């Protein structure tokens, strides 16, 4: 029955590379893209293996194209997949664990454990973590000073964020206190910093999850707070997945605090300078007093299975190159994503990089201060996109006051569960 509909391209599993040269599909725009391209050139120079770094506008596009490629059989050698979609790609069964492509002598244990733990499924490293980040809080030191707040002790909890916001707004320095894109990643962070699982089955790392966990203090605390902030005009809602708008609001000093990725560090510095204020960053504010650790964010490189052996060597060489401490150092300096190799971190420290650039250290500190807790492993669920949408959309209903926190949360739960079943 199934066969009659299946058909199509690579049903048999035979794959072919889209290009003779190695091809990487990525979603790194702007300065990050330039840094990535430079690394590609460097690889080509050092090894003589040509590589084609193909930019696609977003993680969603890379995912769509990569799934399409797996289906048709015309595949790139690497796809940079957002960690949110990892499960979806793994479930196709058409990707090869990168661990099998790395040479014997590659020091797998030099990876930062918090990073690799997410990408390790069935005790095998499935994809190569490359650009990894977590969410941190940026704040406008100048505005803090003007409002009479101490810029050296930024808020650490949501309650403190609220009181700081009130001070900021009341003093008329800014329109609102804080902003961040309405993206599930931020909710995940609040859960993980509180040590609270978002899904059962260890956020999907210990089997297939069946429920979204909303009946807890973290969820209630978060949404009560979020709603209160919106009510009080202390939260600027930039829109769903509106990264650019959130950043823009912060840069225009409409909001004095911004939650976003560590990858924004470089942009924040130059932007703040252009707009005439001093910027700093701090740990992600927690829901309560507990601080367990952030979830992993960012993306990793997946490799499709079935590529010819001679190609596999080149692929392995590229993966090892990208994971090398030197490359990771360059990447970190150019973008703000933290290095994934302990050696790279150590070398950066000893070079005094972090002392000179404290903003680059925050995310790494936040990561390394993290406890080894299942809650810090990002959700690994198949209907990730749907769950993401439900969480984001229902969040709007809750903070808008369209529904009570309690109803909103149960709605969110039942919607996501509908996708899980």
């Amino acid at each position: 029955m199934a066969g009659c509909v299946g058909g199509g391209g690579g049903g048999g599993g035979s794959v072919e590379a889209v290009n003779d040269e190695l091809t990487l599909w990525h979603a790194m725009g702007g300065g990050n893209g330039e840094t990535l391209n430079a690394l590609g050139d460097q690889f080509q120079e050092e090894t003589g293996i040509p590589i084609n770094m193909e930019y696609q506008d977003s993680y969603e596009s890379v995912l769509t194209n990569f799934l399409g490629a797996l289906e048709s059989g015309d595949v790139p050698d690497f796809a940079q997949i957002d960690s949110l979609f990892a499960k979806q790609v793994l479930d196709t069964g058409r990707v090869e664990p990168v661990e099998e492509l790395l040479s014997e002598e590659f020091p797998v244990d030099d990876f930062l454990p918090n990073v690799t733990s997410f990408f390790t499924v069935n005790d095998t490293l499935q994809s190569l973590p490359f650009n990894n980040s977590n969410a941190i809080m940026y704040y406008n030191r100048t505005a803090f000073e003007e409002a009479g707040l101490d810029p050296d002790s930024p808020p650490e909890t949501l309650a403190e964020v609220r009181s700081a916001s009130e001070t900021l707004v009341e003093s008329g320095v800014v329109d609102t206190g804080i902003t961040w894109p309405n993206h599930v990643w931020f909710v995940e962070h609040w859960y993980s910093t509180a040590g609270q699982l978002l899904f059962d089955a260890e956020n999907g790392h210990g089997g297939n999850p069946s429920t979204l966990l909303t009946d807890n203090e973290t969820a209630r605390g978060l949404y009560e707070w979020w709603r209160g902030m919106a009510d009080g005009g202390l939260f600027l809602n930039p829109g769903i997945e509106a990264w650019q708008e959130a950043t823009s609001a912060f840069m225009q000093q409409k909001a004095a605090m911004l939650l976003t990725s560590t990858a924004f560090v470089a942009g924040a510095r130059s932007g703040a300078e252009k707009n005439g204020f001093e910027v700093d960053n701090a740990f992600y504010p927690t829901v309560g007093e507990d601080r367990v650790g952030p979830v992993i964010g960012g993306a990793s490189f997946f490799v499709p299975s079935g590529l010819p052996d001679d190609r596999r060597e080149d692929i392995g060489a590229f993966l090892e190159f990208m994971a090398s401490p030197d490359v990771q150092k360059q990447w970190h300096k150019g973008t703000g994503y933290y290095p994934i190799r302990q050696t790279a971190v150590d070398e950066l420290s000893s070079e005094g990089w972090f002392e000179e650039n404290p903003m680059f250290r925050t995310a790494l500190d936040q990561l390394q201060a993290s406890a080894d807790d299942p809650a810090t492993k990002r959700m690994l669920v198949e209907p990730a996109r749907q769950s993401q949408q439900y969480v984001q959309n229902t969040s709007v209903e809750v903070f808008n006051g369209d529904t009570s926190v309690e109803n909103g949360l149960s709605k969110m739960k039942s919607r996501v569960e509908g996708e899980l079943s």
Partner: protein
Amino acid sequence: MTLLETIVDAPNRAAEYLRGERTGDRFARLREDGLAVHAALASLVLLLLFPVLVAIVVSTKESGIVTGLADLAPGGNAYDNYYRALVELEFYRYMLNSLVMASVIVVGKLAVSLLAVLAVVYYRVPYKDFVFLFILFTLLLPVPVRFVPLYRLVTGLGWNNTVFAITVPYLASATTVFVLRQHFLSIPPSLVENAKLDGVGPLEFLWRVLIPMSKGILVGVSVIIFVYAWNQYLWPLVIVGDDLQVAQVGLGRLRGQAQAGEVAWALTMTGSVLTLLPPLVLLVLFRKPLLETFSIQRK
């Protein structure tokens, strides 16, 4: 007027206008039209134009400093923005690809539709209405409705990453067939009868008589097809790689620059203006044939 004539003639017309020989006359006629009508029209048109004007203004400014209407004065960054988008970020490449795709679709669609309409109008064959409806019906089957099977089909043909993939599936066109059919039905039948008596074959009749007689409408339809093809996004996105990628997707990539922390309103607007430009130029140049020919006559 041909494109060339239009272009060649443009300076003359501009000069004529600027000499303002008929300015007084113009004002008198303006009053005759009714100033209220002009006021109403001007505000309606401004309403339609405003968003695009803003896009143009923003594309001339430095990144991320537009915060209110007061900032909407043209900035001095136009050259930088356009240079960065077109050259540094290689937007010109996407535009060229789009141009190729749209041109192939225009030519192909016209050719395929002309043949079909020739059969539908000038042949005595059974089930003609059915065939016509069959073609019209395709209006109800847009890409999202048939995405997966289409994807599998095209990759099955080995067409992914080829120009075929982003052109051939678009070649059947209900709108073109409909408009051309209406037009041919307005051509007196005696012409084809005369040709028939002379033994002029159908293809010669099409080439030597119908097409020259339909220049206006063909230009008009071409503009509409071009705009349609130029605006395709989803299908090219998934079916071709970067080498063949089109302007709409390229625009997404410009926008993507912003995700990396740049506040790139200006750049995005630059891309928007660039993307708008080719169809806009066509629309302005060919507005006359467009307007002269798009009256739907009785069936």
